[in-house]
């Protein structure tokens, strides 16, 4: 048991699984000698050598497309996109092949690969380094999409992703890479993909969040408790696709009110799906419209203004109050 940052926790998940399973290989830009630009793969080249930790040429489509090939050939590749904003160069490989290979081959070939990529704002980075476009992947049949919210669940989910027989897109909230430390057990630990969790219990309103927005949402819940005497239940999605709608639907059956939070642009964003599911599952319990606290339908501004763009506890609290007052 050690107190680890998310970077260290992710590193641990890969290291332990690589020690156990020779078929696990890593590839991506600067993942080897440099240890990854966020140092998530630090030390793995030294431990596993350059046939297992592969510094690739600068070509995202090749990284993703050759990962698929490696999976066909019996390996379990973990590829890294340096930022999710550069994964679009490989988008056709995801949509047209990775998401389809088991289906196209009618079960002959699975694609047990993981594509890791940092996403989201909050680290004062340049253009393309701060986006949240989880919908592109979540809307693509055949892909799973996981977004952890802390070191411990990051490690456990990454381990599950590596072992999953199907392709998993693994979005890492880069704002959380080093923001907190958490006790992470030395022994391996997994979490099921496709299960959300109740991050805070409460009876008055349901707040749904994930990734870097979870901490802000939890903070909002504390404020609501302190200032309004309102107990919010906070759902941490953890997996976006398949979306576990059981916990938030149940919660809303109890609270009757819901606010959803994401950094991604509002229109056609994840909150829309949550609203639709709540309609389908908990319509008669809804006492107020589901409010969305999201990024606007614009590109996240350059870093000087990014905090003004990102949802924060203030905005979540305000939305919760509106919902409660409805």
């Amino acid at each position, binding site marked *: 048991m050690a107190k680890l940052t998310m970077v260290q926790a992710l590193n641990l998940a890969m290291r332990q699984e690589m020690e156990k399973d020779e078929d696990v*290989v890593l590839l991506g830009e600067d993942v080897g000698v440099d240890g990854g630009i966020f140092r998530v793969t630090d030390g793995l080249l030294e431990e596993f050598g350059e*046939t297992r930790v*592969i510094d*690739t*040429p600068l*070509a995202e*489509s*090749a990284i993703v*497309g*050759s*990962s*698929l*090939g*490696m*999976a*066909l*050939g*019996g*390996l379990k*590749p973990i590829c890294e996109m340096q930022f999710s904003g550069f994964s679009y160069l490989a988008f*056709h*490989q995801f949509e*047209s*092949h990775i998401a389809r290979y*088991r*289906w*196209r*081959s*009618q*079960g*002959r*070939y*699975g694609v047990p690969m993981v594509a890791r990529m940092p996403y989201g704002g909050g680290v004062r980075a340049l253009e393309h380094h701060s986006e949240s476009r989880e919908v592109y992947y979540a809307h693509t*049949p*055949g892909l799973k999409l996981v977004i952890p919210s802390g070191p411990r669940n990051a490690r456990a989910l990454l381990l599950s992703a590596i072992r999953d*027989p*199907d392709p998993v897109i693994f979005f890492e909230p880069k704002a959380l890479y080093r923001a907190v430390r958490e006790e992470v057990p030395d022994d391996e630990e997994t979490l099921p993909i*496709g299960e959300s969790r109740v991050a805070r219990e409460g009876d008055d309103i349901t707040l749904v969040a994930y990734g870097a927005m979870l901490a802000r949402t939890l903070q909002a819940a504390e404020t609501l408790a302190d200032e309004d005497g309102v107990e919010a239940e906070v759902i941490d999605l953890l997996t976006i696709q*398949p*979306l576990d709608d059981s916990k938030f639907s149940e919660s809303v059956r109890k609270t009757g009110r819901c606010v959803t939070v994401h950094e991604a642009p509002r229109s056609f964003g994840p909150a829309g799906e949550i609203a639709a599911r709540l309609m389908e599952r908990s319509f008669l319990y809804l006492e107020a419209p589901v409010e969305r606290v999201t990024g606007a339908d614009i590109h996240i501004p350059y870093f000087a203004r990014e905090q003004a763009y990102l949802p924060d506890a203030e905005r979540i609290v305000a939305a919760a109050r509106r919902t409660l007052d409805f």
Partner: protein
Amino acid sequence: MPRGQINVARELEYLSVLDEDGKLDEEHAPEVSDDDLKAMHRAMLLARRFDERMLNLQRQGRIGTFGPLKGQEAAQIGTVAAIGDNDWLIPSYRETAAALWRGTPMSGLLVYNAGYNEGGRIPDEQNDTPIAIPVGTQMLHAVGVAYALKYKGEDKVAMTYFGDGATSQGDFHEAMNFAAVYETPTVFVCQNNQYAISLPRAKQTQSATLAQKAVAYGVPGIQVDGNDLLGVYAAATEAVKRARDEHRPTLIECVTYRMEVHTTADDPTRYREDEEVERWAKRDPIDRIQRYLKQRDVLDDDAIEELESELKEEIETAWSQAQEAIEKYGDDPLHMFEHLFAETPPYLEEQREALAKALEAGAGKGTGQPQANGEEADDEEADEETDEEAGENGDNG
């Protein structure tokens, strides 16, 4: 020397062994037994006849759009025959001859082309990947496969096919580069059949040959007469050996010709002259190898006739099997939910059940869809109709 030429041609060659007049270049002829030649000839002829039969089934509306291979039999068989049963094949969508050589049943291809996903399954014992339609994107998979083979110390190579048009895609470039950098046992086979749908080779790229694109990656490139089975086989054998022994990729350009439509939705009269097609008909790869085998008394007219009827029977048997399968699959629309994941998750089970109910209640027949060329559109000019048919579902493939 402050200014001078950079020499890069060392590993860039052209090759032809059995030319269109039947002249054999002994020096460069590959070592290959008569039996093997007969087997290759048979495979070429089977592919040709199967292709013809598919075209005919498509015209009758029994199967859907597909891309015929006529004219490319030597390019495919000459290359695929150079790899072993345990090696990997990563094709695009026109490699019917190569697929049959590898063991893919004709009935499966027919089922696939009749619009049933089940037909896409590759037999378990074959290291082949399914048809890949997005042009130029599958070569990367071959590089990854080859990486895995080398990683696992398996003495196998990966051969991948693509067209002249595919060489313009970024993924071609990335695949060649990765293969060279990782030193993977990959053989890149470009079937330059002179067209990418309507675009002639000359407008696809300004390079004099496609083979020379290998120079960009520091790997060997060879341009071979793609209608010359012996030449193709020689080039492929070398490349496979280089892949196996040295873990070095090769780019082979087979110069050939698509003698048929791009796909059954295509109308080639819009973009090429009959005269050109006739010119290439004289270079027919089957004629060429047949003449040679007859000359060498490996084959005679009787044997060919016998072979023809044998192939015909095989094909008809396959079609019967395919029809049976199609009938069976037709009853199972919910099969569409299979195989997306190793385990079908609960939300998909739910969606399957919901659809099952809807289908039972009469849905699934496209009710409300205006019919193409239906009432409202039937005041068409007669000569426009042909075009429209050609364009009906696009030249997809």
